């Protein structure tokens, strides 16, 4: 009762700040499993009426609607106005606007590599002192998130620039439970079992995998995820880290081995829908469709947690589609490695309201509000998993929480000329016939030439 009174007083105070009617908010404050305490505490601290925070990021369409709903609560709590705009070509736009001096207050980077690049040119402002300690203490595997957001500034001093908000899980294999059920297949627990299953599906006259690498100008990136996942399953995490920093060459046997592990799946005409030749030309957005055709064109599809957005309309999670963890080798004893990616907020033009927004993103409520709308995973340890919109999300959250090793998408960490260029095109060369050794050597040559 006392809590309810406290909450309604806070809500009154919020509405008194004048900005927004309560009907505007999609989840009524005080109701549900949300951490409203953190919201009320935040709302008490700040009154920023009349101020504006401008934010640009890569979320467009449906994702923009969701994040706008989260920002609605910031507006309601502080009275400030939030102006978020998403762009399909965010990576180019942010470079132009910061260099030309018309930067927004905050930018949402999908790749730490780009943020590091901009930090080194003095285009970003470090986060407030103490944020690093806070992230280390409050995020699952906190120190790794601090490291991923810490870059050298223009003067060479290292500080925390990026606060991670939203994580994508990449080590997932999607399948149709009905198809598995009818064929009598079990979900593989180890990589050995996965390879056996692949072979068995072929013996039964089916096609195990749908793989599509097409993505317009970014064609090839889905293959980099495959290789990174394979890297974590065939080599120590320390080798992975050396690879990312190019402390071992790209054509090191460990890397070439991982590429060939990917090739075991993708370069076998029997294993992939349409044959190995169609891997490079199939669009990644269209490739999961084969799981749902009747008769099914393929049984499995390895892709990150965002892919259900491209499943055919009306696909019901858990009934028509489900996922399992892309397993590790039982014999290699590397634990259960998980590959992921994430987006980070960094300050491009500081202001009071901008700092308040960073504080807002540290509250559990800001994460829970998107979790409840679906399509959002978080590393924030203080959130209530009950607010995940469905069991699928919760199960992904568990995979993240149970990971013995978490590594960030390597291609996002490499210099963009490699991670968003040579690596992509190299993978296309590989699936269309060039040997792994040659591809890796070519990429290493490119890397040498940009130093």
């Amino acid at each position, binding site marked *: 009762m006392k809590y309810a009174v406290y909450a309604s007083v806070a809500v009154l105070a919020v509405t008194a700040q004048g900005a927004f009617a309560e009907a505007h908010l999609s989840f009524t404050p005080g109701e549900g499993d949300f951490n409203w305490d953190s919201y009320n505490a935040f709302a008490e601290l700040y009154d920023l009426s009349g101020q504006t925070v401008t934010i640009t990021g890569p979320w*467009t369409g*449906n994702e923009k609607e969701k994040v706008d709903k989260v920002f609605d609560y910031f507006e309601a709590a502080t009275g400030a106005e939030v102006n978020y705009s*998403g762009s399909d070509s965010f990576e180019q*736009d942010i470079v132009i*606007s910061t260099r*030309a001096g018309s930067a927004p207050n905050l930018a949402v980077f999908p790749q730490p590599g780009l943020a590091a690049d901009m930090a080194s040119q003095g285009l970003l402002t470090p986060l407030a002192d103490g944020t690093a300690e806070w992230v280390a203490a409050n995020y699952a595997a906190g120190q790794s998130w601090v490291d991923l957001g810490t870059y050298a500034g223009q003067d060479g001093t290292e500080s925390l620039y990026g606060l991670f908000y939203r994580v994508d899980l990449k080590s997932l294999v999607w399948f149709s439970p009905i*198809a598995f059920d009818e064929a009598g297949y079990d979900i593989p627990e180890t990589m050995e079992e996965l390879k056996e299953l692949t072979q068995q599906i072929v013996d039964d006259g089916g096609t195990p995998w749908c793989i599509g690498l097409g993505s317009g100008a970014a064609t090839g990136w889905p293959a980099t995820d495959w290789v990174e996942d394979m890297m974590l399953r065939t080599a120590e995490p320390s080798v992975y880290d050396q690879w990312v920093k190019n402390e071992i060459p790209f054509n090191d046997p460990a890397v070439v081995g991982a590429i060939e592990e990917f090739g075991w799946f993708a370069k076998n005409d029997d294993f992939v829908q349409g044959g190995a030749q169609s891997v490079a030309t199939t669009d990644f957005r269209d490739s999961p469709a084969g799981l749902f055709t009747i008769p099914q064109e393929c049984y499995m599809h390895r892709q990150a947690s965002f892919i259900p*957005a491209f499943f055919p*309309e009306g696909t019901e999670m858990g009934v028509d589609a489900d996922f399992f963890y892309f397993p590790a080798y039982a014999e290699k004893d590397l634990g259960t490695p998980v590959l992921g990616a994430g987006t980070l907020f960094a300050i491009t033009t500081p202001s009071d309201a901008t700092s308040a927004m960073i504080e807002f993103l540290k509250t559990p409520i800001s994460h829970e509000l998107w979790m409840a709308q679906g399509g959002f995973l978080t590393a924030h340890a203080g959130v209530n998993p009950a607010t995940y919109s469905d069991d699928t999300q919760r199960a992904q959250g568990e995979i993240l929480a149970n990971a013995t090793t978490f590594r960030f998408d390597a291609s996002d960490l490499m210099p963009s000329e490699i991670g968003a260029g040579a690596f992509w095109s190299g993978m296309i060369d590989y699936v269309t016939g060039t040997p792994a050794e040659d591809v890796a050597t070519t990429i290493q040559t490119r890397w040498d030439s940009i130093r």
Partner: protein
Amino acid sequence: MDNMAGQKTSLSIVTNISVIVLVVLWLIPTVGLLVSSFRTNDQISASGWWASMFSVEEAIRISPEPAGASRNGDYHVLSGNLFEGGSGSVSGFGIAATAPGVAEPGQVYARYTVDVTEPDGKVDDTRIEVAYDAGTEAVIPTQDDDGNAVVPGTAVLERSLEVTENGDFTYVSDKEIKRAPSVYITTMQPPSFSLKNYQTIMASDNMDRAFINTLTVTIPATIIPILIAAFAAYALAWMDFAGRGFLIAMVVGLLVVPLQLALVPLLQLHNKIGIGQSFLGIWLAHTGFGLPLAIYLLRNYMVGLPRDIIESAKVDGATDFQVFTKIVLPLSFPALASFAIFQFLWTWNDLLIAKVFLPSNSESWVMTVKIADDLLGSRGGDWGILAAAAFISIAVPLFVFFAMQKYLVRGLLAGSVK
């Protein structure tokens, strides 16, 4: 020389045929885009647009509600109609997604468990599936799929399905039917098109705003460069001053400079002098980027006007300004019009410059930005929307083009043939 006329005829036939071939080749992608704009996303990724005009046999999974299942001896029976009040025509059915149309309507498709003798002499059980006409007895084959001999008299029915052409079905199972069973049928689907993509675009928030913004950018960005370029072209064509040749060479040189180079410095300049990201800024940018071609095109046209007219006007005491407004400008109308079409189309379709020089909030989105950043979905996967958006945004340029096309051809020729 005698067969000159005949040659000409055969040549013109060849010309006509190649023109037709070229036109058809050119039109194929456009027709494809048009057809795609009436199809949903799932349809587009499932089949090509050329296949969309015909009815196709489609396999579907139906899970009839298990309510109403009854017990009949050792078996559980569920019957009803698969189309549930609707109507349809079944062309084939099955009990597994791998073979959705294996049996014909009017047949029964049944799965038995049988004992087989394996090559090493061991007896094992396996499954056998048979289709037979309703009302007759099932004939159990003597061999299974792997060629092993079936032990006679061991067949036990596991489940069977009977479907008639109008969708009536009887499902028999040896287990209690608690969950909805999966029944697969194939049926002919007529071609289906919808206006949904167009509705989505027309009904989306702020689309009218985006349309007006595009016009706000496009019209001044077409008129301003023409105004400036016409004066400059006259001066470069008909006024004698030192360095004129050098200036012309500069303008031609500017034609080859990629405008992307200027984006950052130009925006920096705009921010410094207080224009910032605004409509004024984008007008100036489009003007700057359009001027080299405009001056080059108009100057080449004007220099080809008859010298006599201009000189007699000057003899009669006309000033340069009078010559320009009263003689050169009216005569240059085709060139002005053709450049106007170019500039209009280019600014209408522009995405890059609009993104850089306009504020990024949704109030100042032009149509291209609205389509790319808002309608195409989170990762640009809505192909159907893209196709429909292309046809909506093409409407105005098409109108402009047809209204002014007679000038386009004349203007193009006029600039080049001298």
